[in-house]
């Protein structure tokens, strides 16, 4: 897999009125990867994506796509970018097919075969000749994806794309993005306010809060079990006793108790020690759950524990 940057965000700032909505964000999205852009509502995800598409101006900074500047060389920069910004609003009085023809004409070199190809790719063959106003939200998302893929972009940017898709649709969608990234070396950037969704789909995740990029993490990094600190939840028969035990072992770490569970954030290599200690104390363990903690913890801090679905 190449790690050629397709999109480069360089010290992007956006000020509206006196408010700094995007404050000095820099990152890159590489060919062949799915980059997750994660942040609570109002963090600035859509604003950043709008700047990438040239829909709003940047107060400072620069965005390059395939080496071309969005600000100074818009047509060359945008020609291989496809995407959806917030809801994929299309012409409701036109059929799905006419909508695609409409966008295809704007590139000038898209064949009828290519249009049919993306239609079957997103599974809209049955309804493509119907007017968009008769489409369900899920079908509109599919049509949105179709227009994003039409011109074979090498950068696909999707703003909260799974809104309105059913679980089966989301699964299919994920598989499809994965295929594009791996087989066609497309760079994909997906924004979301849901960590769970991002973890399943992305290679790297950037976390944005209040217009600032807080952290960028590789999903593989924290799935790598040796190094990583994670939250471990034990289901035990005697929670108070387990708490005493854990507090003795890890004085500096807080525990979180429930009726029948106790959680602690520790290095995963310590799990065998805890199990041994519980057995010694006669505490019966009926369940053990590990969660990769680092990212989620950060995200929980950001969202105040409310943003994860």
């Amino acid at each position, binding site marked *: 897999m190449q790690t050629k940057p397709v999109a480069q965000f360089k010290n992007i700032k956006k000020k509206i009125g006196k408010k700094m909505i995007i404050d000095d964000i820099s990152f890159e999205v590489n060919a062949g990867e799915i980059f997750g852009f994660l942040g609570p509502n109002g963090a600035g995800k859509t604003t950043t994506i709008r700047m990438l598409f040239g829909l*709003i101006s940047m107060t400072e900074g620069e965005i390059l796509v395939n080496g071309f500047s969005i600000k100074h060389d818009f047509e060359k920069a945008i020609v291989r970018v496809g995407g959806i*910004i917030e809801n994929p609003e299309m012409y409701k009085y036109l059929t799905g097919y*006419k909508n695609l023809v409409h966008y295809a004409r*704007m*590139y*000038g070199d898209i064949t009828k075969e290519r249009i049919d190809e993306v239609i079957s790719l997103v599974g809209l063959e049955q309804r493509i000749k119907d007017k968009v106003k008769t489409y369900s939200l899920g079908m509109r998302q599919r049509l949105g994806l179709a227009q994003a893929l039409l011109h074979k972009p090498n950068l696909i940017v999707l703003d909260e794309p799974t809104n309105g898709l059913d679980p089966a649709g989301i699964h299919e969608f994920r598989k499809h993005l994965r295929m594009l990234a791996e087989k066609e070396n497309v760079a994909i950037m997906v924004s979301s306010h849901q960590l769970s969704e991002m973890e399943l789909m992305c290679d790297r995740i950037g976390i944005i809060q209040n217009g600032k990029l807080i952290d960028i993490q590789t999903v593989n990094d924290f799935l790598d079990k040796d190094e990583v600190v994670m939250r471990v939840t034990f289901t035990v028969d005697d929670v108070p006793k387990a708490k005493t035990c854990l507090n003795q072992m890890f004085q500096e770490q807080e525990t979180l108790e429930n009726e029948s569970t106790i959680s602690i954030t520790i290095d995963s290599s310590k799990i065998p020690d805890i199990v041994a200690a519980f057995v010694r104390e006669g505490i019966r363990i009926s369940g053990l759950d590990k969660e990769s903690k680092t990212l989620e913890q950060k995200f929980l801090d950001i969202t105040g524990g409310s943003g994860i679905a």
Partner: protein
Amino acid sequence: MRRMLNLIQNENMKIFRRLSTYIMLGLLIIIVVAAGVISKNTAQQASINTDWKTQLTQDNTTMQKSLTDMQTIPGIDLEQSRAAVEKNIKTNNYRIEHNLPPVQGKIVWGFVTNMVSTISIVSLFVIIIAAGIVAGEFNSGTIKLLLIRPLKRWKVLLSKYLAVLLFALDSLILLFVASFLVGGILYGWSGVGQPYLGYTNGNVTEINMLGHIFTTYAYACVNLLMMVTFAFMISTVFRSNSLAVGISLFLMYTGTILVTLLSKYSWVKYILFANTDLTVYTNGLPVAKGMTMTFSLLVLAVYFILFNAISWAVFTKRDVAA
């Protein structure tokens, strides 16, 4: 260039895939048919008793008499009035000699000429299209997926403007064809070959009728073009369909009144509506003294460029956060 044509084709598709467009064009046809039926009925009543040659001879006698009785009235140019009456007499004589019945009303071209006033209805419809073509994309949110294509914004805007003008052209052709057909069906086709009678340097001249009608259309379209460009600007600047229709129609219908009210001020000549009727330079009087065709064309050009420059500046610079 090809993609510009594609863009125009797109805009055209968006105009003609909507029911409202066909309702407007249908209304236009209904208006022409209705006007034809009404004028046919009234024209018949008037023409029962006299044939046109007798009528014209009578008219000429009256006018000859008034020519000799004419006196100097303060504020009215005697020479000018005389010339106007002479023109009418000579034209009538020419008609009688060459067996050319008057165009007004009773032959196909008369109806087509009368229907030129319907261009104000066409203006209304084109204003509605112009008002929606930019604002509509913002209201529906489709502007986002429109502007993320490899085409600079001014190209998208230009395609929209050209599509509006194309729609105006379509509507005008429809109006012409409809009034020609209705006129022909109601009054017969016998007058089709008849020329229009012009008058230059005291001589009656025959002018190709089609050419004359096109000139009449062209004069009437000055106002249309300006108001449509204005509506397009309002639509772009305020992204509001109804505001653009409202302001444009208001100005279109009050503009001339406004000019009349302000006619005592010398700066009235710089108002757009004092310059939209260019026929005053061939038959009539301009609103203010010292106004010439060139002056009016210049004023029109300045407004035209101004409206388009504002649309262009706002559309290409504005943040799209719809």
